[in-house]
């Protein structure tokens, strides 16, 4: 077996601990080698802050970028800091000859993203973005249904990501690129739309700053994507509402010429990790049947569907959800680093996601549908 790829992680906050380390640890092809942790770790959920070396005594701890990026043994860098430092850190990593995983949102501007993509081409290393929600149980389920063709050509797709709470950073003035929920949560849902349907032809956006009122930082948005060519009849709506009182929240409402799929609830992985369940546990990533989506199609696609109305016109059933597993993100990264497969979460797609957010804000402010370029 090839020696594990040594991973250097920038940051040791909630993201590193919840979304990266558990998966890196569960793959023998990856090894936690070093951290760049500049200050003392922030306290998380009432626990006192910890230093990465308390938890990973065999890992190296750097408190300066030069030392961290100069470590010749590190092959793959994972950037888990706030969006404001993503571009700077990713650039340092690429210039130091490392492969890079950047947390979402990729960058604060599409211009930064374009620069990183150009730099990646020069270095020939892997540049990818942690679009982890491509590995969510519900998204994988929807993709499987789309691949089956049971719904026919898709005409409408509504993707939601609504939260009961408000995040603290909403409402801070003035607005900085990278702020707001289009970046915070839209970077996931817009990416899912890009993964399913490719780049759009136009973007129409609406947003509100409800809690922050005078701020231009959005905590509610609607982004409408329209398409060209064979997809000219497709209409995609992406929405987020903070402070949504609904349990479980609506996630997907997809309609095609021969079927529809409606699903509520969330992928369970984040909650499970926080509760201490390991990715290797058999229950990991497995949804409760309570939140299976309802699939209605004109011909039976899944044995769970029944001829509910009794006239043979529609087959309806709760479609069992596919297992979600963020570990696969890292398995895919390993394959890409080793040249065994192409990059799955392509930097260009994430760049397109950032561009859609920029156009969504501009559209909302000008009252115009804008061409996607």
């Amino acid at each position, binding site marked *: 077996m090839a020696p594990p790829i040594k991973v250097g992680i920038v940051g040791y906050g909630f993201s590193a601990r919840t979304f990266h380390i558990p998966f890196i640890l569960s793959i023998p092809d990856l090894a936690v080698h070093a951290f760049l942790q500049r200050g003392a770790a922030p306290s998380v959920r009432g626990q006192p802050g910890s230093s990465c070396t308390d938890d990973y005594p065999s890992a190296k701890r750097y408190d300066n970028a030069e030392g961290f990026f100069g470590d010749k043994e590190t092959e793959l860098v994972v950037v888990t800091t706030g969006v404001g430092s993503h571009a700077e850190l990713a650039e340092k990593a690429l210039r130091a000859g490392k492969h890079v995983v950047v947390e979402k949102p990729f960058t604060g501007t599409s211009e930064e993203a374009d620069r990183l993509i150009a730099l990646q081409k020069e270095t020939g290393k892997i540049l990818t973005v942690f679009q982890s929600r491509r590995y969510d149980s519900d998204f994988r389920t929807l993709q499987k249904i789309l691949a089956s063709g049971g719904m026919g050509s898709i005409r409408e797709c509504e993707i939601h990501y609504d939260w009961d709470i408000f995040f603290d950073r909403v409402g801070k003035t003035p607005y900085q690129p990278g702020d707001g929920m289009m970046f915070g949560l839209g970077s996931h849902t817009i990416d899912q739309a890009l993964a399913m349907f490719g780049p759009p032809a136009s973007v129409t956006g609406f947003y509100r700053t409800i809690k922050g009122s005078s701020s231009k930082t959005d905590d*509610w948005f609607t982004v409408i994507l329209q398409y060209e060519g064979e997809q000219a009849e497709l209409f995609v709506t992406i929405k987020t509402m903070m402070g949504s009182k*609904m*349990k479980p929240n609506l996630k997907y409402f997809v*309609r095609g010429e021969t079927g529809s799929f409606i699903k509520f609830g969330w992928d369970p992985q984040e909650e499970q990790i926080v509760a201490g369940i390991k990715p290797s546990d058999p229950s990991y990533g497995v949804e409760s049947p309570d939140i299976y989506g309802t699939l209605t199609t004109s011909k039976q696609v899944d044995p769970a569907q029944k001829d509910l109305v009794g006239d043979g016109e529609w087959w309806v059933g709760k479609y069992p959800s596919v297992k979600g597993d963020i570990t696969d993100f890292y398995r895919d990264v390993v394959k890409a680093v080793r040249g065994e497969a192409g990059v799955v979460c392509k930097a260009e797609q994430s760049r397109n996601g950032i561009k859609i957010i920029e156009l969504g804000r501009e559209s909302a402010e000008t009252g115009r549908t804008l061409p996607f370029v």
Partner: protein
Amino acid sequence: MSPPKPIGVGIVGYGFSTRTFHLPFILPNPSYRLVAFVQRHDAATDSRTGKTAPHCTIDYPEARRYKGHEEFLEDKEVELVIIATGHSSHAALAIAALKAGKHVVVEKPFCCSSQEADQVIAEAKKSGKVLTVFQNRRYDSDFRTLQSLVDQNVFGQITEAEIHYDVDFPPWASGNPGPDFKPGGGLMFGIGCHVLDQAMALFGQPTSVTGFYRSLVHPSKSDNAFTIVLQYDPSGPQKDLLVTVKGSIVSNLVYPLKYFVRGFDGTFIKHGEDPQEPQIVSEGMASTDPKFGYEHPDTYGVLTTSKKAHDSQQEKKGKWVGNMPSLKGDYMGYYEDVAKAIRGEKELVVKPETSRDGIRVIELARESAELGRTLPFA
């Protein structure tokens, strides 16, 4: 005190609409007396099938039958005229009826343009008679349920309302409309006028309109799928509200999504449709039947709130959740309200100005879609 004299009713048109949506709610109501119909063509039997098309002279021989509206409007016993013809004749017939001193109910869509609607409204003001539009879906079970929740403020500040009217490839909207759009044609006029009216009944006049539409299956400038986004006065209490009104002929669900309304204190999501039309058409139920207008519990909406708002709710993970029993659908109520307005007992519920605004929204939605711009409502 003797009951008031019934209002004499004359109906122009004897098609599906008249027989399904009007007569069952007029005939049992003692405030009305059926006087006359206008039905242009004589009763005819199809020589192939032996079937006779419905005819007012066969079904209501005691009522008068006119072949044209001019003579019909001279009938002094007709006090209220119901216009149930094709869209393009609505405005002209309404004006003629008002000029003849009649009260008027116009089927939806009110007219084919906001300009026509303005002309009809002006004529009504001159005549002093009641002019209203058959926005019967304000009396739908599901809309009445939603309206009662809004009135009780269970949502707190409403941030979003999505109102759908999706019908799975209906025969009346699946044919080839031809390449051109005709004012009054398309799905926005056909059923959008219902859901836009519901949006306006709940939230009032918008200040901007953003429209999108498609002609699915057949290339055309007519529409059979649409999305209309309404926004409101940025200096008022609804400045953060976004209302999305949608309709499509692509809808493969047993119970189509109808309402999805969200506020800071609660959410309501509902599938299904008002049962009155299928009860009349498929079940042959009388409008006076005690079961009439009641939905099947499968289509009750789900109400989630942060504080308990209704007895049907139970606590679940810090929220109150329950299937909200729907209120009764009540098309009889439409005609009861019209009678009260004619008698001056109650303010007119469905105001023609609101329907005119609905048509204006449709015009702006089409223009917005074509320009790729949000347009001010004016």
